[in-house]
């Protein structure tokens, strides 16, 4: 099976708690999964996601708090609007919306988070590499 890269972009609060707790409990994560922490899902703009695909991610999963749990207030609203737009761009590009997934977690859902990552990794492995993947590794720019 083709080697694929999965990137998680996690909100610092509930999802990151889950991720930490999963690590402490020794739960196994897919080996092709990397995580990036942002303070809030409202920090996610279209560039972060596009650049992940530009630099070779095959799937991107957004790990968010539930809207009502947001520590900042308008974060989810902003995040959702950015994600909705980037989904449309991914569709136009032919990368497809299925390679971008959004999931919400409460702080005590470590097992749910781990299960979601395995399921997403499995889905992306079946889909294979992202068609916009660069031929060779791109220098960070």
């Amino acid at each position, binding site marked *: 099976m083709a080697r694929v890269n999965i990137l998680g972009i996690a909100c610092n609060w509930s999802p990151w708690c889950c991720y930490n707790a999963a690590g402490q409990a020794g739960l196994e994560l897919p080996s092709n999964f990397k995580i990036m922490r942002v303070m809030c899902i409202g920090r996610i*703009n*279209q*560039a*972060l996601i*596009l*650049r992940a*695909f*530009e630099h070779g991610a095959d799937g991107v999963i957004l790990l968010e708090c539930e809207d009502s749990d947001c520590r900042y207030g308008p974060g989810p609203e902003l995040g959702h*609007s950015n994600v909705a*737009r980037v989904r*449309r*761009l991914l*569709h*136009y*590009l*032919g*990368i497809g919306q299925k390679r971008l997934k959004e999931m919400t977690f409460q702080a005590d859902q470590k097992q749910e988070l781990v299960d979601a990552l395995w399921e997403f990794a499995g889905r992306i492995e079946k889909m294979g590499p992202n*068609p*916009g*993947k*660069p*031929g060779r590794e*791109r*220098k960070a*720019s």
Partner: protein
Amino acid sequence: MKLDSPEIKRIIKERSLYMCLECGKCSASCPRLLTGKEYSPRLLAHKLIAEPGDLAYIQNAVWECLTCGLCEERCPSGVQFSQAILDLRAELSKALGLTGFRAHDGAVHSWMRIMTSPRLEQNRLDWLTPELKVATDGPVAFFTGCVPYFDVFFSNIGVDTLSLSSDAIRLLNFLDIEPVVLGNERCCGHDLLWTGDRDNFAALCRLNYQEFKDHGVEEVITNCPECYQALGTYMPQVIEGFDLKVTLLIDLLEREVNKGGLSFRPLEQKVTYQDPCRLGRGAGRYEEPRNLLKRVPGLELVEMANNRHSAICCGNSSFINCDAFSKRIQAARLDQARDTGAETLVTACPKCMIHTSCALRDPAPGPQAPLKVRGLVSILAEQIEWAQDETPRRKSGAGGGSRGDKI
């Protein structure tokens, strides 16, 4: 590191920087400097020649320029300033990486680079409505460029750059042309080229050229001045044996109008016109868009204080360096537009449309007269009157190209 490699010396020579008299006219014209940015084209020319060790200054300055070409217009010595910047960016990014400050975190450049992947199968034609007659194969293509992407990306500012493409196709259909619109056309690469990324620009050129050839295209019509420059001037330098004809839609329309094949319904409106840098100073089309507007009865075209050769850039180019100084340039430009008393600001470039629409949303110090931004082709498409007894046939057009623009 000292910037005195043979490559840099070649650029200085080829772009006539040695001819600089240090008169300072360029700096006195530069919209960046005039809005207060610490940047001077004269000083950059001086540093490159006399102080190549000042890497910090040079590297900064090379990414500051809007490449608007206004300084070149005024330079008594024929220094090709924006072309020098084009070359220097390519050279510096080879040695030091792409360091220009990219607006929107580089999202725009990101999708442009994603498009260099040969495996991509885009779904970029969702916007085509059934009334627009287009073909999949044939000798004449219409190049849409990134407008479908722009409208999604910039949907928060409510800009409608797609209207430039759909209205262009409407006009072509009026002329009995059913253009090929390619489902897998890539970005023309203008922004990558002008931000120093020549490899990916070349990759886009090769993919687009192959796509044209695969669909039997011999002539490409475009409505975007930047696509026109990229396809008409720079693509032939990348593609060996390039044999496409690249035509600007307004050239074609002007010919048809002059033949008397088209007439327009009246529109009582006062408008002013923003010369896009790549169309005016870049391609020398100052009068063509104005002549077309003047054909619409009732439409009154009033000029801004800076027009034609001395028109001011919309404040941003290739989606780099959008900052407080760009905003000042835009505010000053919008003031000029309002001072004419026009209710509509007409432009012929999707980027001008994006940047002016964005600037129009900025909070203003006091009450401002309302101003709409519209594409030239949209006004024409809406006002056109089709005379049934005449069936104008089009003749061939001219290709792209402007002075000193080898890469």
